[in-house]
């Protein structure tokens, strides 16, 4: 048995080590960073982003890319808010119906996304970007530019009611994360994602219905975008046509920082979790230590590069696109 830790092990654990180094770094500069309350704040900010990152991880593992999350989250948030208000506006009456409705709608939107990509043979980059624009446009059309407020105290309890220091929405995100991990590791669909990502021709030759798995992947991602939308509405109490803004950058960055390889076949939802936490810790930490705002963007970029460098096994990459 070799006494040296293999390079592979290091790259696998690098993202988690980066996360711990960052937490230590910020705590040394401002000890208030390392408190349960602050971790709860990071968790609240990261919960919607985690759902989007998990959804896009499935797509990236397949070897494709999904850029529709901004429009999808905006449209899903608006659909959820309208459905919730339509069914009585409170969880006490029929308002809870809005949740399965939006999950189905999100999955349907992702399904259309996948069909456009697979059936019309449009590269996933273009197809999903276009669907994202359609989503944003539909959200603007439906809201007319206005904000839709969701004021129900029971629903907002997702944010205000805490258990062991963390609000319920964090547990909701955690529950869906466990579901995603189950799908990834213990279902045929999940294994097929990796098969396609690792070698599409091989998978096809082995009898995997690549087209069907692709479409199913996009639909699954769409469902997770719907969960993210519900969490966004829970967090800020309103749905608007810009609810999905900024999610594209943060989700794909988180996935890559956490160790999901953009060329497919490598990584999974736990990598997405670590990546989202890294980005969340950086964003929160920079304000907590009092870094001037004009340096923050630059610092975020530098830290992201360092994290990706550490978590990529560069010798295994033949060429970088």
């Amino acid at each position: 048995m070799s006494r040296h830790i293999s390079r592979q092990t290091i790259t696998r654990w690098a993202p988690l080590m980066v996360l711990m180094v960052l937490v230590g770094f910020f705590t040394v500069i401002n000890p208030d960073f390392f408190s349960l309350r602050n971790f709860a704040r990071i968790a609240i900010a990261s919960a919607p982003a985690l759902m989007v990152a998990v959804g896009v991880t499935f797509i990236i593992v397949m070897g494709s890319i999904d850029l529709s999350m901004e429009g999808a989250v905006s449209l899903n948030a608006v659909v959820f808010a309208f459905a919730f208000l339509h069914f009585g506006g409170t969880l006490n009456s029929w308002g809870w119906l809005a949740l399965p409705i939006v999950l189905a709608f999100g999955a349907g939107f992702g399904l259309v996304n996948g069909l456009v990509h697979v059936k019309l043979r449009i590269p996933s980059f273009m197809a999903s970007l276009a669907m994202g624009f359609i989503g944003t446009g539909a959200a603007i059309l439906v809201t007319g530019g206005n904000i839709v407020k969701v004021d129900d105290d029971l629903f907002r309890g997702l944010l205000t009611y805490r258990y062991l220091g963390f609000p319920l929405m964090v547990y909701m995100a955690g529950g869906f994360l466990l579901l995603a991990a189950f799908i990834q590791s213990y279902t045929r669909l999940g294994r097929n994602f990796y098969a396609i990502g690792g070698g599409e021709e091989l998978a096809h030759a082995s009898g995997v219905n690549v087209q069907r798995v692709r479409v199913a992947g996009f639909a699954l991602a769409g469902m997770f975008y719907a969960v993210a939308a519900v969490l966004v509405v829970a967090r800020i109490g309103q749905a608007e046509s810009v609810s999905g803004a900024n999610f594209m950058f943060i989700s794909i960055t988180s996935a890559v920082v956490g160790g999901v390889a953009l060329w497919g076949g490598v990584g999974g939802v736990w990598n997405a979790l670590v990546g989202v936490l890294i980005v969340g810790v950086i964003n929160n930490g920079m304000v907590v230590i009092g870094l001037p705002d004009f340096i923050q963007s630059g610092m975020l970029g530098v830290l992201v590069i360092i994290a990706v460098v550490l978590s990529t096994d560069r010798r295994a990459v033949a060429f970088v696109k």
Partner: protein
Amino acid sequence: MSTFIKDFIEREKVSRRNFMLATAAGVTTAAMPGLFGSGVANAALTDPALAWSYRDRASAYWNAIVSGGETFVESLGKTKADMTSLINEGSSEKSLSDIKSFLAKNSGNCAIACDANDSPNARPVAEAVKAAGGYVSTIWNKSDDLHPWDIGNNYVCHLSWSGVKPSEEAARALFKKMGGKGGVVHVGGIPANIPAIERLQGLMNALKDFPEIELLDVQPADWDTQKAAALMSSFITRFGDKITGVHCANDNMAYGVIEAFKAEGITGVPITAFDGNPEAVEMVINGELLATVFTNPMWGGGIALALAHHAAIGTFVPSEEPNEHREFYGPSVVISTDDVKEFKARFMDATPTYDWNDFWGQSAGAIVYN
């Protein structure tokens, strides 16, 4: 022996005489328009096509601007569809190219109102409209060295709203509510935007008179609700109970700040905002917000288009107007708990009517550069 190659070379050589004649003809053609002066641009247009160029409809503010433009168009006896919306989604390049397409489609017979999206883009827009013979008035974004009177009649006017004074007034109301002491944080807009810079400046001006109030930190949240919620959470980690007041650069971010406090179970911290959106006014009424600032975007949207239209059809000649009619501030009203009910009755429950021929009646003075 075939002389094909020799003939071919002879034909391909441009004879020097032909070359000189062709150049002379080309230069003369290019110079022709300039020889006759810029007479085309000053002719009055008939029934110019109307357009509003703006970022998007995803906020109550821009919705009000657009509805102001539509109200003006309806006052001319036309329908809402007669006002074209040129939506630039926050891209200066798209803003410019949309306007150029609109000018080309209508052969320059246009009256356009435009928010150029960022200051440097105002000049290309004004010059493109002038070159096509149309008329444009701009709002909000313009570089300091660009003036309508330097471009000519085609650049009718620039309308802006001073963020400094009203933001300063809101800050003073905030400090009074804080009892003259404590810690305040500023949640700012996109740092390169002029409104963000001005509203922060207003806070800094007010701070000079309150030495016992400490400015804890200033960070941008890019006019976004979710970013503001995350930023406020981080502020609470860093400063905790030291925060006794929050100064926000717009209403959307204030909503995020309120949610961040709600998540922590913190109540009673006064917050000021800016924009005067209907939701924000309701929040001032029920005490969640201390104050906001109303800039009457409906009037602004209508009057910018009205000015471009009337300059185009010759109702007035811009070059004969004084400078303060070509660069002026719109009205800003600070709404706080004392006057909010009256404001709501006048501006929200009843749709106000405006005299679109009274161009400068609500002007708050000439634009000042410092």
